[in-house]
């Protein structure tokens, strides 16, 4: 009786706590699995959304000119059609570079644009100073797109420069100013596009496009 009286409570507590711990572990495992699944679903959904966004950009970049070429409405010998193709190729190239996993995505994207221009026979200088801070893809697009668009029109030479500090990134494209239509991209002058400032001007000597991000 004495033995029963002494041990019944501790044994009961021990057994009870063991059961509680076991249950808690099980619950935690279930919850963790649930969260992992939710996170995976979120990631997948976000991935799909990003892919969809990119697809929209791709179709606006290349879809129409490709469709017109396929339908025979556009003549590949037409310089305007050729220009649109070059422009579309530049956008596609940058979009492909955008999803690459590299340390300096902005420089990687600009390098991709410079590569393409060079392959099309344009002597281009790309000079970078400093390392850009990590920037969201939206900002990178606003920094690079107006300039890579302009690049598609250039023929003689181009100088693409990037100067980066922790709080500021300035990308500039300088090309000779020839007779002809305004370059592709926003019209001359200054534009504020959120945290990115765009500036374009031509002075008869050079065309100068610059995008500037400030924290």
């Amino acid at each position, binding site marked *: 009786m004495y033995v029963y009286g002494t041990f019944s409570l501790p044994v009961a507590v021990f057994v009870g706590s063991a059961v509680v711990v076991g249950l808690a572990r099980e619950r935690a495992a279930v919850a963790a699995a649930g969260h992992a699944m939710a996170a995976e679903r979120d990631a997948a959904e976000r991935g799909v959304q990003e892919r969809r966004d990119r697809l929209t950009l791709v179709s606006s970049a290349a879809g129409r000119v490709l469709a017109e070429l396929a339908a025979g409405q556009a003549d590949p010998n037409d310089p305007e059609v050729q220009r649109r193709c070059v422009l579309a190729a530049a956008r596609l190239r940058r979009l492909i570079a955008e999803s690459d996993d590299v340390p300096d995505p902005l420089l990687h994207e600009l390098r991709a644009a410079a590569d393409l221009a060079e392959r099309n026979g344009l002597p281009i200088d790309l*000079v970078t*100073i*400093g390392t850009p801070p990590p920037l969201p893809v939206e900002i990178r697009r606003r920094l690079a797109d107006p300039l890579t668009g302009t690049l598609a029109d250039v023929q003689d030479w181009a*100088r693409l*420069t990037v*100067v*980066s*500090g922790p709080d500021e990134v*300035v990308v*500039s494209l*300088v090309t000779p100013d020839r007779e002809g239509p305004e370059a592709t991209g926003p019209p001359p002058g200054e534009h504020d596009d959120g945290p990115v400032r765009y500036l374009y*001007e031509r*002075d008869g*000597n*050079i065309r*100068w496009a*610059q995008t500037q991000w400030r924290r």
Partner: protein
Amino acid sequence: MGADPVAAVTDDRPVGVAIVDDHPVVVEGVRAWLATEPRLTVLATGDDPDAVLRAAPDADVVLLDLRLHGRMALDKLAELSAAGRRVVVYSEHTDPQTMLAALDAGAVAFLAKHEGREHCVATVLAAASDRPYVPPALAGAMVGDPRPDRPMLSDKEREALLLWFQSMSKASVARRMQISEHTVKQYVDRARIKYTRAGRPAATKAALLARAIEDGLVRPEEIGIYRSQATHDRPTP
């Protein structure tokens, strides 16, 4: 300015240049560039700085390739600069750190090899009279200088450096900043003069600074060498 940048040095004799490079083809190329300018004359060339300077002890300017026989000649550069030799470094290594290190070591100017004839001639002429010349690549290195002890540049100086680096055209920079070309050059040169205060002291840096003060480009107090006489006799607390 507008004055002839070398008037002070040449008077009637041309500027003597020594070229140190371990690639004969580069030496010949640079010699050909400099030959287009009657105010310059090449006195000696070779791949060993000491031998070249023994052959031409009176050289006003030394054009030094920073990479000689596979190694960076930064210590040689510092030695020559400390001895008062006006060294213009020219190199294919145009990463900003190398350029700033060359300035710190006392180089009068840094020229990227791809920057061509006009910049080369202008740099040597300016160096001969202890005046700054900042080619676009060097302007980029200065404006992007990330070091915590970098010289403090004014907003206008930074803007002028940045735009000059981007466009390589002072006329375009002037139009963009709505100032004269002369003022653009002043901003750029003033930024360069502030760099004479960075790194270890060298005779060439002192000469650049002295000439800049003489020309009215900077005032002594602007670059932090102003010392009030009033504090002179005050005991330190």
